[in-house]
């Protein structure tokens, strides 16, 4: 690299052959341009998701196998420009220029633009072609463009841009042949790859100066837009008619009266699905985990190892896996809502309400997801472009009543709240449950407002929401997304739960008795911890046994049910167990039971959430603050409840 700085533009083919691994191609394009559909169409299931080092941007890559050799395709995040305004755009720019640590520069670029929106999307052509890498421009949505009476001359556009241009339907494998030809050319050194974009000096400086701010940004974009229109005109681009079906659906979905109704109905359907439809699946999974655990227990001889495996690993990982059906259903709904185009409308409907409490329309999806589980919700908060709003959203998601709280609520409500009716058909127990949900929501709203008034104070950024035309979601794209969301969830949640479960198991096993047998729970290290914290939790009406439960529930809330079962020596750990209820009634009164419910509404007893928070906020500061804040709130709330009742 001493003085060969210009070599890249002269002999691309040998450079490709000498690089380690498969040659690499980057997919670049604006959000909703069909980029991911194209990526799925090319790579099928040969793809993996990871994060770029040190940041929360997902790195999606896959391998395309062609007869002449394989090519690695990297699907970059959707971007509108290469200015480092957002993390996505910064990562994209750094990746394309080879400045991203630990990632080498791609050999070629595929620029994906929505064929129906060329006039705007072509604004990305200048900065991307300005990089000087061999480029293929792919115009997607060919069928939609034609159906809506639009058109473009690919050959003219190609001549104007100086690179190959292909018009495709990303969902139709056969139409991807020009793209595959481009990929093959990376191996054969075909002419497609030799055709480096003609970069004029002006374009090159423009591309560089976006972040150098040499040109006033407003003029730069005005210039780009003018150039995009000139390009469009030269390529005989014919604007498609506005989508008629989109207009008609929007007149219902964004209607003054019907709009909010559709919105509420959508939420109701998602709730119904994750709380009712998921139940048999979750029961099935639970039975499967239990049965496999029993099988392993029967196969292995009695030993500490068996105990670790069954009481530690199986119990811990099982507690996460049980939620998988519910989370899968949630992800399926999210995928359908997003791919169809409705999610953007839901964000618009929710924006006013969300804005009032210091969040924004895009926060709606993470908050909804959090009713199933905070871990995917925190990850979903990536959709919130504005950094302050994203942090605020992440911070309040654990207040939403996740399904791990339900077993605890169910146990305590059944044990302490009488079954009688409250008002009309509304039973006392149902009312208490609804009250707990409402309390969580109120805490989230109050906290968001508090944060935006203090730590995350600042002028609100504009809310710019694109509403893509409605499209039929494809099964394939939903399937692919489900698969990779699930992998990410299991990896994040599974790792931490496994660790914590093993640590807790060890704490119940030491110090061992004279002949090596495990101690009584009260004498174990865990039991001692319960006794150590007893003075602190006594004002809440809890004794050391509940204390142990609280310690174990730090791993995951629902773990407390099993722990209490063990402590009280109850055989069946079912949360409906009358034995466990009776045992609890000995130790708690109404005041301390309500105190415990309130403690569970507020406290951040979920290590998976803490771990994913750290990952998504890039440090310990936010999770530490959040943990402390929620603990203080939980303690204060529980104390008040115990004192009053």
């Amino acid at each position, binding site marked *: 690299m001493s003085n060969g700085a210009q070599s890249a533009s002269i002999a691309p083919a040998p450079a490709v052959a000498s690089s380690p691994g498969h040659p690499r191609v980057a997919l670049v394009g604006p959000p909703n341009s069909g980029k991911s559909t194209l990526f799925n169409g090319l790579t099928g299931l040969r793809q993996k998701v990871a994060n770029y080092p040190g940041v929360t941007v997902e790195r999606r890559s896959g391998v395309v196998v062609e007869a002449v050799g394989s090519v690695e395709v990297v699907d970059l995040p959707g971007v*509108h420009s290469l200015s480092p*305004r957002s993390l996505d755009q910064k990562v994209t720019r750094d990746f394309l220029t080879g400045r991203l640590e630990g990632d080498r520069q791609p050999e070629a670029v595929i620029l994906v633009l929505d064929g129906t929106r060329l*006039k*705007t999307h072509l604004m990305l052509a200048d900065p991307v072609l300005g990089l000087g890498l061999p480029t293929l421009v792919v115009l997607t949505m060919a069928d939609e463009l034609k159906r809506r009476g639009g058109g473009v001359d690919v050959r003219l556009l190609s001549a104007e841009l100086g690179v190959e241009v292909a018009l495709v339907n990303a969902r139709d494998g056969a139409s991807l042949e020009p793209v595959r030809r481009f990929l093959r050319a990376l191996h054969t050194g075909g002419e497609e790859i030799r055709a480096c974009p003609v970069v004029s000096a002006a374009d090159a400086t423009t591309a560089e100066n976006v972040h150098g701010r040499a040109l006033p940004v*407003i003029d730069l974009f005005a210039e780009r837009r003018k150039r995009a229109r000139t390009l469009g005109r030269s390529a005989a681009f014919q604007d498609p008619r506005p989508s008629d079906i989109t207009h008609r659906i*929007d007149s219902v979905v964004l209607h003054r009266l019907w*709009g909010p109704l559709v919105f509420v109905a959508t939420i109701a359907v998602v709730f119904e699905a994750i709380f009712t439809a998921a139940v048999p699946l979750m029961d099935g999974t639970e039975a499967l985990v239990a049965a496999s655990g029993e099988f392993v227990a029967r196969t292995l001889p009695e030993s500490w190892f068996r105990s670790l495996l069954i009481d530690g690993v199986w119990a811990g990982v099982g507690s996460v896996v049980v939620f998988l059906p519910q989370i899968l259903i949630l992800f399926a709904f999210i995928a359908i809502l997003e791919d169809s185009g409705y999610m953007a409308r839901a964000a618009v409907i929710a924006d006013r309400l969300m804005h009032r409490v210091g969040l924004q329309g895009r926060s709606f999806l993470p908050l909804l997801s959090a009713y199933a589980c905070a871990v995917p919700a925190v990850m979903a908060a990536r959709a919130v472009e504005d950094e302050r709003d994203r942090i605020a959203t992440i911070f309040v998601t654990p207040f939403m009543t996740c399904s791990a709280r339900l077993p605890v609520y169910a146990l305590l409500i059944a044990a302490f709240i009488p079954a009688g009716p409250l008002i009309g058909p509304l039973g006392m127990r149902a009312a208490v449950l609804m009250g707990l949900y409402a309390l969580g929501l109120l805490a989230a709203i109050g906290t968001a407002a508090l944060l935006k008034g203090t730590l995350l104070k600042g002028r609100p950024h504009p*809310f710019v929401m694109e509403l893509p035309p409605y499209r039929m979601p494809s099964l394939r794209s939903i399937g692919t997304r489900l698969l990779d969301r699930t992998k990410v969830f299991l990896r994040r949640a599974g790792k931490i739960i496994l660790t914590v479960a093993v640590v807790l198991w060890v704490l119940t096993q030491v110090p061992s008795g004279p002949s090596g047998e495990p101690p009584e729970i009260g004498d174990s290290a865990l039991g001692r911890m319960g006794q150590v914290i007893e003075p602190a939790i006594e004002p809440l009406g809890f004794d050391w046994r509940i204390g142990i439960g609280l310690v174990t529930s730090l791993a995951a809330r629902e773990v407390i049910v099993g722990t209490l079962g063990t402590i009280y020596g109850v055989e069946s750990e079912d949360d409906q167990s009358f034995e466990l209820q009776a045992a609890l009634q000995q130790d708690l009164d109404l005041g301390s039971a309500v105190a415990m419910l309130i403690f569970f509404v507020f406290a951040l007893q979920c290590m998976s959430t803490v771990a994913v928070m750290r990952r998504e906020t890039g440090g310990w500061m936010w999770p530490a603050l959040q943990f402390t804040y929620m603990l203080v709130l939980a303690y204060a709330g529980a104390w008040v409840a115990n004192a009053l009742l």
Partner: protein
Amino acid sequence: MGSRRDSASKPADRTLADVPLEEEVVVVRMEVAGEDIEPLLERGIVPGCKVCPVRHSPAGGPTVYRVDGHLIALRRETASCLCVRSALEAAGVLDAN
């Protein structure tokens, strides 16, 4: 473009927030501070572009605009930072393309 000279000959510019549904206008000036302007520019909302409000969302939420044939929702406070002229009027003054 941002100068005051236009106020002498023309009535004060309207902002996009004041434009009734289905009236096409041209953006002449953007009074959005700092980096906040980029999300607008990147999506094709630049001086000289045509914008048409197509739908108000319920309860005073963001309004949906058609920009270059696609739909973008903006809050009222953002729309009121964009000074506009009616498309017909602007045709004589600006090259609206």
